[in-house]
Protein backbone atom coordinates (compact mmCIF):
# COMPACT_ATOMS: atom_id res chain seq x y z
CA UNK A 1 0.00 0.00 0.00
CA UNK A 2 1.38 3.41 -0.95
CA UNK A 3 0.32 6.29 1.22
CA UNK A 4 0.76 9.82 0.05
CA UNK A 5 0.19 12.87 2.20
CA UNK A 6 -1.74 14.47 -0.62
CA UNK A 7 -4.19 11.56 -0.74
CA UNK A 8 -4.54 11.62 3.06
CA UNK A 9 -5.31 15.32 2.89
CA UNK A 10 -7.72 15.29 -0.02
CA UNK A 11 -9.33 11.87 -0.30
CA UNK A 12 -8.47 9.86 2.79
CA UNK A 13 -7.85 6.14 2.92
CA UNK A 14 -10.25 3.28 2.26
CA UNK A 15 -10.23 0.36 4.71
CA UNK A 16 -8.36 -2.73 3.60
CA UNK A 17 -11.45 -4.77 4.42
CA UNK A 18 -9.79 -7.14 6.85
CA UNK A 19 -9.74 -7.19 10.61
CA UNK A 20 -12.52 -7.10 13.19
CA UNK A 21 -11.83 -3.69 14.67
CA UNK A 22 -12.11 -0.65 12.42
CA UNK A 23 -10.49 2.64 13.36
CA UNK A 24 -12.05 5.55 11.50
CA UNK A 25 -9.51 8.33 11.67
CA UNK A 26 -8.55 11.71 10.35
CA UNK A 27 -6.11 11.39 7.45
CA UNK A 28 -3.65 13.44 9.52
CA UNK A 29 -3.28 10.46 11.86
CA UNK A 30 -2.93 7.69 9.26
CA UNK A 31 0.83 7.24 9.36
CA UNK A 32 0.91 7.42 13.13
CA UNK A 33 -1.87 4.85 13.56
CA UNK A 34 -0.30 2.50 11.03
CA UNK A 35 3.03 2.81 12.86
CA UNK A 36 1.34 1.98 16.17
CA UNK A 37 -0.55 -0.88 14.56
CA UNK A 38 2.65 -2.36 13.20
CA UNK A 39 4.62 -2.01 16.40
CA UNK A 40 1.72 -3.44 18.41
CA UNK A 41 1.13 -6.31 16.01
CA UNK A 42 -2.56 -5.46 15.89
CA UNK A 43 -3.52 -7.55 12.88
CA UNK A 44 -7.16 -7.44 13.87
CA UNK A 45 -7.22 -3.65 13.36
CA UNK A 46 -8.21 -2.07 10.06
CA UNK A 47 -7.92 1.63 9.29
CA UNK A 48 -10.14 3.97 7.29
CA UNK A 49 -9.28 7.65 7.03
CA UNK A 50 -11.37 10.63 6.09
CA UNK A 51 -9.67 13.49 4.22
CA UNK A 52 -7.59 15.50 6.66
CA UNK A 53 -8.57 18.73 4.93
CA UNK A 54 -12.03 18.40 6.53
CA UNK A 55 -10.37 20.23 9.42
CA UNK A 56 -10.67 23.44 7.46
CA UNK A 57 -14.47 22.97 7.59
CA UNK A 58 -15.06 21.28 10.98
CA UNK A 59 -18.85 21.36 10.52
CA UNK A 60 -18.38 18.68 7.85
CA UNK A 61 -16.56 16.26 10.17
CA UNK A 62 -19.54 14.89 12.18
CA UNK A 63 -21.65 13.97 9.11
CA UNK A 64 -18.61 12.45 7.37
CA UNK A 65 -17.76 10.35 10.43
CA UNK A 66 -21.38 9.29 10.80
CA UNK A 67 -21.54 8.19 7.16
CA UNK A 68 -18.31 6.19 7.55
CA UNK A 69 -19.54 4.47 10.70
CA UNK A 70 -22.90 3.60 9.14
CA UNK A 71 -21.26 2.35 5.97
CA UNK A 72 -18.79 0.09 7.75
CA UNK A 73 -20.50 -1.08 10.89
CA UNK A 74 -21.90 -4.23 9.32
CA UNK A 75 -18.45 -5.43 8.31
CA UNK A 76 -16.66 -5.07 11.66
CA UNK A 77 -17.28 -6.20 15.20
CA UNK A 78 -16.36 -2.81 16.63
CA UNK A 79 -15.48 0.66 15.46
CA UNK A 80 -13.37 3.35 17.13
CA UNK A 81 -13.30 6.96 15.97
CA UNK A 82 -9.81 8.46 16.06
CA UNK A 83 -10.85 12.09 16.10
CA UNK A 84 -10.80 14.52 18.99
CA UNK A 85 -13.40 17.29 19.08
CA UNK A 86 -11.49 18.96 16.23
CA UNK A 87 -13.43 22.21 16.28
CA UNK A 88 -16.85 20.61 16.05
CA UNK A 89 -18.01 22.17 19.31
CA UNK A 90 -19.14 18.87 20.82
CA UNK A 91 -21.10 17.81 17.75
CA UNK A 92 -18.80 14.93 16.91
CA UNK A 93 -19.10 13.65 20.50
CA UNK A 94 -22.89 13.78 20.14
CA UNK A 95 -22.76 11.82 16.90
CA UNK A 96 -20.44 9.18 18.41
CA UNK A 97 -22.61 8.85 21.52
CA UNK A 98 -25.69 8.40 19.36
CA UNK A 99 -23.97 5.75 17.24
CA UNK A 100 -22.53 4.02 20.30
CA UNK A 101 -18.89 4.35 19.26
CA UNK A 102 -15.96 5.69 21.26
CA UNK A 103 -13.71 8.54 20.17
CA UNK A 104 -10.50 10.21 21.34
CA UNK A 105 -10.59 12.67 24.20
CA UNK A 106 -9.54 16.28 23.94
CA UNK A 107 -9.98 19.30 21.71
CA UNK A 108 -7.41 18.57 18.98
CA UNK A 109 -4.60 16.25 17.94
CA UNK A 110 -2.04 18.69 19.26
CA UNK A 111 -3.68 18.38 22.69
CA UNK A 112 -3.71 14.57 22.84
CA UNK A 113 -0.23 14.26 21.38
CA UNK A 114 1.10 16.31 24.24
CA UNK A 115 -1.39 14.88 26.74
CA UNK A 116 -4.67 16.71 27.24
CA UNK A 117 -3.99 17.76 30.83
CA UNK A 118 -0.44 18.91 30.13
CA UNK A 119 -1.58 20.78 27.03
CA UNK A 120 -4.37 22.57 28.90
CA UNK A 121 -2.01 23.45 31.75
CA UNK A 122 0.32 25.27 29.36
CA UNK A 123 -2.48 27.66 28.40
CA UNK A 124 -0.54 28.78 25.34
CA UNK A 125 -3.07 31.01 23.66
CA UNK A 126 -0.64 32.54 21.22
CA UNK A 127 1.02 29.37 19.90
CA UNK A 128 0.34 27.95 16.46
CA UNK A 129 0.87 24.18 16.31
CA UNK A 130 2.25 21.88 13.69
CA UNK A 131 2.40 18.11 13.97
CA UNK A 132 4.51 15.86 11.71
CA UNK A 133 1.62 15.66 9.26
CA UNK A 134 0.92 19.38 9.33
CA UNK A 135 4.60 20.20 8.90
CA UNK A 136 4.64 18.04 5.77
CA UNK A 137 1.33 19.50 4.57
CA UNK A 138 1.92 23.13 5.55
CA UNK A 139 1.29 24.29 1.99
CA UNK A 140 -1.97 22.37 1.63
CA UNK A 141 -3.33 23.19 5.09
CA UNK A 142 -2.12 26.72 5.70
CA UNK A 143 -0.63 28.52 2.72
CA UNK A 144 -3.19 27.62 0.06
CA UNK A 145 -6.48 27.65 2.01
CA UNK A 146 -5.58 30.98 3.59
CA UNK A 147 -4.66 32.39 0.19
CA UNK A 148 -1.13 33.28 1.32
CA UNK A 149 0.34 31.97 -1.92
CA UNK A 150 -1.63 34.59 -3.81
CA UNK A 151 -1.83 37.28 -1.12
CA UNK A 152 1.09 37.12 1.30
CA UNK A 153 0.00 40.53 2.59
CA UNK A 154 -2.75 38.73 4.54
CA UNK A 155 -0.16 37.04 6.75
CA UNK A 156 -0.28 39.73 9.40
CA UNK A 157 -4.07 39.60 9.51
CA UNK A 158 -4.04 35.84 10.15
CA UNK A 159 -0.98 35.47 12.33
CA UNK A 160 -0.36 38.91 13.80
CA UNK A 161 -1.59 37.86 17.24
CA UNK A 162 0.50 34.68 17.40
CA UNK A 163 3.86 34.66 19.14
CA UNK A 164 5.27 31.24 18.40
CA UNK A 165 5.03 28.17 16.23
CA UNK A 166 5.32 24.98 18.24
CA UNK A 167 6.29 21.93 16.23
CA UNK A 168 5.09 18.87 18.11
CA UNK A 169 7.36 16.17 16.77
CA UNK A 170 5.92 12.69 16.71
CA UNK A 171 9.13 11.34 15.19
CA UNK A 172 12.75 12.40 15.12
CA UNK A 173 13.14 13.65 11.57
CA UNK A 174 15.67 16.47 11.06
CA UNK A 175 14.30 17.26 7.59
CA UNK A 176 10.80 17.73 9.00
CA UNK A 177 12.16 19.88 11.80
CA UNK A 178 13.72 22.11 9.18
CA UNK A 179 10.42 22.30 7.32
CA UNK A 180 8.66 23.33 10.51
CA UNK A 181 11.37 25.86 11.29
CA UNK A 182 10.98 27.32 7.80
CA UNK A 183 7.22 27.58 8.35
CA UNK A 184 7.82 29.53 11.56
CA UNK A 185 10.22 31.81 9.78
CA UNK A 186 7.75 32.37 6.94
CA UNK A 187 5.02 33.30 9.43
CA UNK A 188 7.40 35.49 11.44
CA UNK A 189 6.95 33.44 14.61
CA UNK A 190 9.36 32.11 17.22
CA UNK A 191 10.11 28.43 16.71
CA UNK A 192 9.99 25.65 19.25
CA UNK A 193 10.39 21.94 18.61
CA UNK A 194 8.58 19.89 21.21
CA UNK A 195 8.99 16.11 21.02
CA UNK A 196 5.70 14.45 21.98
CA UNK A 197 5.75 11.00 20.42
CA UNK A 198 2.24 9.66 19.89
CA UNK A 199 1.03 10.72 23.34
CA UNK A 200 -2.50 9.72 24.27
CA UNK A 201 -3.18 8.42 20.76
CA UNK A 202 -0.86 5.54 21.59
CA UNK A 203 -2.40 5.00 25.02
CA UNK A 204 -5.98 4.95 23.69
CA UNK A 205 -5.27 2.74 20.69
CA UNK A 206 -3.47 0.23 22.91
CA UNK A 207 -6.52 0.14 25.15
CA UNK A 208 -8.88 -0.37 22.21
CA UNK A 209 -6.65 -2.96 20.52
CA UNK A 210 -6.32 -4.92 23.76
CA UNK A 211 -10.03 -5.66 23.74
CA UNK A 212 -9.54 -7.95 20.73
CA UNK A 213 -13.15 -8.53 19.72
Amino acid at each position, binding site marked *: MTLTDRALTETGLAPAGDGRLLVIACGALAREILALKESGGWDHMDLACLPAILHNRPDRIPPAVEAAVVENRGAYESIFVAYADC*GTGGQLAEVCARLGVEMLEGPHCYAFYEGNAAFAARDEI*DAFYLTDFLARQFEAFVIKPLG*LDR*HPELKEMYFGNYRSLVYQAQTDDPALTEKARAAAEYLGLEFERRPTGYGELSRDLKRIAARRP
Partner: protein
Amino acid sequence: MSEEDDEIILSELSDEDLVNQMFDDLYDGLKDEIVEGTNILLERGWTPYKVLTEALVGGMKIVGEDFRDGILFVPEVLLAAGAMKAGMGVLKPLLAETGAKTIGKMVIGTVKGDIHDIGKNLVGMMMEGAGFEIIDIGINNPVEKYLETLEREQADILGMSALLTTTMPYMKVVIDTMKEKGIRDDYIVLVGGAPLNEEFGRAIGADAYCRDAAVAVETAKDFIARKHNQRVGGQA
Protein backbone atom coordinates in the same frame (compact mmCIF):
# COMPACT_ATOMS: atom_id res chain seq x y z
CA MET B 1 -7.62 45.91 -28.42
CA SER B 2 -4.66 47.19 -26.40
CA GLU B 3 -4.48 47.04 -22.63
CA GLU B 4 -4.64 50.80 -22.53
CA ASP B 5 -8.01 50.77 -24.27
CA ASP B 6 -9.34 48.41 -21.60
CA GLU B 7 -8.42 50.68 -18.74
CA ILE B 8 -11.41 52.13 -16.93
CA ILE B 9 -11.11 55.78 -15.98
CA LEU B 10 -13.21 56.02 -12.81
CA SER B 11 -13.66 59.76 -13.05
CA GLU B 12 -15.25 59.40 -16.49
CA LEU B 13 -17.98 57.06 -15.27
CA SER B 14 -21.50 58.17 -14.39
CA ASP B 15 -22.44 57.95 -10.72
CA GLU B 16 -24.33 54.74 -11.30
CA ASP B 17 -21.54 53.13 -13.31
CA LEU B 18 -18.96 54.30 -10.79
CA VAL B 19 -20.84 52.73 -7.89
CA ASN B 20 -21.17 49.49 -9.86
CA GLN B 21 -17.46 49.62 -10.66
CA MET B 22 -16.74 50.16 -6.96
CA PHE B 23 -18.79 47.05 -6.19
CA ASP B 24 -16.51 45.14 -8.57
CA ASP B 25 -13.39 46.73 -7.11
CA LEU B 26 -14.47 45.89 -3.58
CA TYR B 27 -15.17 42.35 -4.69
CA ASP B 28 -11.64 42.20 -6.08
CA GLY B 29 -10.14 43.83 -2.99
CA LEU B 30 -8.66 46.79 -4.86
CA LYS B 31 -7.81 49.34 -2.17
CA ASP B 32 -6.47 52.14 -4.33
CA GLU B 33 -9.44 52.05 -6.68
CA ILE B 34 -11.85 52.17 -3.75
CA VAL B 35 -10.11 55.19 -2.27
CA GLU B 36 -10.17 56.88 -5.70
CA GLY B 37 -13.85 56.08 -6.23
CA THR B 38 -14.71 57.34 -2.75
CA ASN B 39 -12.94 60.62 -3.39
CA ILE B 40 -14.61 61.06 -6.78
CA LEU B 41 -18.09 60.60 -5.30
CA LEU B 42 -17.28 63.09 -2.52
CA GLU B 43 -16.04 65.59 -5.10
CA ARG B 44 -19.32 65.17 -6.95
CA GLY B 45 -21.16 66.30 -3.85
CA TRP B 46 -22.20 62.96 -2.38
CA THR B 47 -22.43 63.08 1.40
CA PRO B 48 -19.97 60.83 3.25
CA TYR B 49 -22.90 58.85 4.60
CA LYS B 50 -24.28 58.22 1.12
CA VAL B 51 -20.91 57.06 -0.18
CA LEU B 52 -20.56 54.76 2.80
CA THR B 53 -23.96 53.14 2.58
CA GLU B 54 -24.51 53.02 -1.16
CA ALA B 55 -21.02 52.32 -2.50
CA LEU B 56 -19.05 50.63 0.29
CA VAL B 57 -21.68 48.84 2.38
CA GLY B 58 -23.61 47.99 -0.76
CA GLY B 59 -20.50 46.37 -2.23
CA MET B 60 -19.67 44.49 0.95
CA LYS B 61 -23.21 43.16 1.05
CA ILE B 62 -22.54 41.35 -2.23
CA VAL B 63 -19.23 40.05 -0.86
CA GLY B 64 -21.01 38.81 2.27
CA GLU B 65 -23.73 37.06 0.28
CA ASP B 66 -21.22 35.32 -1.98
CA PHE B 67 -19.20 34.25 1.06
CA ARG B 68 -22.34 32.77 2.60
CA ASP B 69 -23.13 30.97 -0.66
CA GLY B 70 -19.64 29.48 -0.89
CA ILE B 71 -18.67 31.51 -3.96
CA LEU B 72 -16.06 33.58 -2.13
CA PHE B 73 -13.70 32.36 0.56
CA VAL B 74 -12.00 33.91 3.57
CA PRO B 75 -8.96 35.36 1.74
CA GLU B 76 -11.17 37.17 -0.78
CA VAL B 77 -13.42 38.50 1.99
CA LEU B 78 -10.39 39.80 3.86
CA LEU B 79 -9.09 41.56 0.78
CA ALA B 80 -12.51 43.11 0.20
CA ALA B 81 -12.63 44.16 3.84
CA GLY B 82 -9.20 45.72 3.47
CA ALA B 83 -10.46 47.74 0.51
CA MET B 84 -13.56 48.83 2.40
CA LYS B 85 -11.40 49.83 5.35
CA ALA B 86 -9.31 52.01 3.03
CA GLY B 87 -12.48 53.71 1.79
CA MET B 88 -13.72 54.17 5.32
CA GLY B 89 -10.39 55.74 6.19
CA VAL B 90 -11.34 58.58 3.83
CA LEU B 91 -14.92 58.82 5.10
CA LYS B 92 -14.47 58.46 8.84
CA PRO B 93 -13.11 61.94 9.62
CA LEU B 94 -15.81 63.44 7.39
CA LEU B 95 -18.55 61.45 9.11
CA ALA B 96 -17.23 62.63 12.47
CA GLU B 97 -17.25 66.25 11.24
CA THR B 98 -20.85 66.01 10.12
CA GLY B 99 -21.75 64.60 13.55
CA ALA B 100 -23.87 61.82 12.06
CA LYS B 101 -25.93 60.25 14.83
CA THR B 102 -25.06 56.67 15.58
CA ILE B 103 -27.71 53.95 15.70
CA GLY B 104 -26.21 52.45 18.83
CA LYS B 105 -22.97 51.68 20.58
CA MET B 106 -21.34 48.25 20.63
CA VAL B 107 -18.50 46.93 22.75
CA ILE B 108 -16.82 44.09 20.90
CA GLY B 109 -13.91 41.76 21.66
CA THR B 110 -12.73 38.17 21.58
CA VAL B 111 -13.08 36.20 24.81
CA LYS B 112 -10.38 35.30 27.28
CA GLY B 113 -7.94 32.78 25.83
CA ASP B 114 -8.79 33.58 22.22
CA ILE B 115 -6.55 35.66 19.99
CA HIS B 116 -8.43 35.09 16.73
CA ASP B 117 -9.85 38.43 15.73
CA ILE B 118 -10.59 38.24 12.01
CA GLY B 119 -14.33 37.67 12.52
CA LYS B 120 -14.52 40.29 15.22
CA ASN B 121 -12.77 42.83 12.99
CA LEU B 122 -15.13 42.12 10.09
CA VAL B 123 -18.17 42.49 12.31
CA GLY B 124 -16.81 45.71 13.80
CA MET B 125 -16.21 47.17 10.37
CA MET B 126 -19.61 46.22 8.99
CA MET B 127 -21.34 47.51 12.11
CA GLU B 128 -19.48 50.77 11.79
CA GLY B 129 -20.51 50.95 8.16
CA ALA B 130 -24.12 50.48 9.22
CA GLY B 131 -23.93 53.45 11.58
CA PHE B 132 -23.01 51.86 14.91
CA GLU B 133 -20.29 53.22 17.13
CA ILE B 134 -17.78 50.48 17.84
CA ILE B 135 -15.66 50.20 20.96
CA ASP B 136 -13.19 47.49 20.04
CA ILE B 137 -11.50 46.06 23.13
CA GLY B 138 -9.35 43.67 21.12
CA ILE B 139 -8.44 40.11 21.99
CA ASN B 140 -8.28 37.86 25.06
CA ASN B 141 -10.76 39.75 27.21
CA PRO B 142 -11.61 38.74 30.77
CA VAL B 143 -15.14 39.36 32.02
CA GLU B 144 -14.01 42.44 33.98
CA LYS B 145 -12.82 44.14 30.81
CA TYR B 146 -16.15 43.59 29.07
CA LEU B 147 -18.18 44.84 32.00
CA GLU B 148 -16.14 47.93 32.80
CA THR B 149 -16.16 48.96 29.13
CA LEU B 150 -19.92 48.44 28.80
CA GLU B 151 -20.51 50.62 31.84
CA ARG B 152 -17.99 53.32 31.00
CA GLU B 153 -19.17 53.62 27.42
CA GLN B 154 -22.86 53.29 28.25
CA ALA B 155 -23.07 50.84 25.40
CA ASP B 156 -26.20 49.22 23.98
CA ILE B 157 -24.68 46.01 22.68
CA LEU B 158 -22.09 43.53 23.81
CA GLY B 159 -20.48 41.49 21.03
CA MET B 160 -18.36 38.48 21.94
CA SER B 161 -16.37 36.39 19.50
CA ALA B 162 -14.49 33.07 19.76
CA LEU B 163 -12.88 30.75 17.25
CA LEU B 164 -11.98 27.91 19.56
CA THR B 165 -14.30 25.33 21.08
CA THR B 166 -12.13 25.57 24.18
CA THR B 167 -12.71 29.31 24.59
CA MET B 168 -16.34 29.71 23.53
CA PRO B 169 -17.71 28.54 26.92
CA TYR B 170 -16.21 31.70 28.41
CA MET B 171 -19.07 33.62 26.84
CA LYS B 172 -21.34 32.00 29.39
CA VAL B 173 -19.04 33.17 32.19
CA VAL B 174 -19.50 36.74 30.98
CA ILE B 175 -23.28 36.45 30.65
CA ASP B 176 -23.62 34.70 34.03
CA THR B 177 -21.60 37.47 35.66
CA MET B 178 -23.89 40.05 34.07
CA LYS B 179 -26.86 38.18 35.52
CA GLU B 180 -25.27 38.04 38.98
CA LYS B 181 -24.73 41.78 38.86
CA GLY B 182 -28.29 42.36 37.70
CA ILE B 183 -27.20 44.07 34.47
CA ARG B 184 -27.87 41.34 31.90
CA ASP B 185 -31.02 42.92 30.55
CA ASP B 186 -29.40 46.33 30.23
CA TYR B 187 -27.56 45.14 27.12
CA ILE B 188 -28.17 43.30 23.89
CA VAL B 189 -25.73 40.39 23.85
CA LEU B 190 -24.66 39.06 20.45
CA VAL B 191 -22.23 36.18 20.02
CA GLY B 192 -20.42 34.77 17.02
CA GLY B 193 -17.52 32.65 15.82
CA ALA B 194 -16.91 29.61 13.64
CA PRO B 195 -17.69 26.81 16.14
CA LEU B 196 -20.82 28.48 17.56
CA ASN B 197 -24.40 27.87 16.53
CA GLU B 198 -27.86 29.07 17.44
CA GLU B 199 -28.34 26.36 20.00
CA PHE B 200 -25.15 27.38 21.80
CA GLY B 201 -26.22 31.03 21.75
CA ARG B 202 -29.54 30.13 23.34
CA ALA B 203 -27.97 27.78 25.89
CA ILE B 204 -25.59 30.42 27.25
CA GLY B 205 -28.29 33.09 27.41
CA ALA B 206 -27.20 35.36 24.58
CA ASP B 207 -29.85 37.38 22.75
CA ALA B 208 -28.66 36.04 19.41
CA TYR B 209 -25.99 34.06 17.63
CA CYS B 210 -24.84 35.80 14.44
CA ARG B 211 -23.37 33.51 11.82
CA ASP B 212 -21.62 36.28 9.90
CA ALA B 213 -21.01 40.01 9.83
CA ALA B 214 -24.05 40.81 7.70
CA VAL B 215 -26.33 38.88 10.03
CA ALA B 216 -24.75 40.67 13.00
CA VAL B 217 -25.64 44.03 11.47
CA GLU B 218 -29.25 43.06 10.73
CA THR B 219 -29.68 41.46 14.16
CA ALA B 220 -28.25 44.47 15.95
CA LYS B 221 -30.49 46.85 13.99
CA ASP B 222 -33.51 44.70 14.79
CA PHE B 223 -32.77 44.57 18.53
CA ILE B 224 -32.05 48.31 18.69
CA ALA B 225 -35.37 49.02 16.94
CA ARG B 226 -37.20 46.76 19.40
CA LYS B 227 -35.49 48.48 22.32
CA HIS B 228 -36.49 51.84 20.93
CA ASN B 229 -40.09 50.70 20.44
CA GLN B 230 -40.21 49.41 24.01
CA ARG B 231 -39.05 52.78 25.28
CA VAL B 232 -41.62 54.62 23.18
CA GLY B 233 -44.31 52.17 24.29
CA GLY B 234 -43.32 52.64 27.91
CA GLN B 235 -43.70 56.41 27.66
CA ALA B 236 -47.12 56.29 26.00
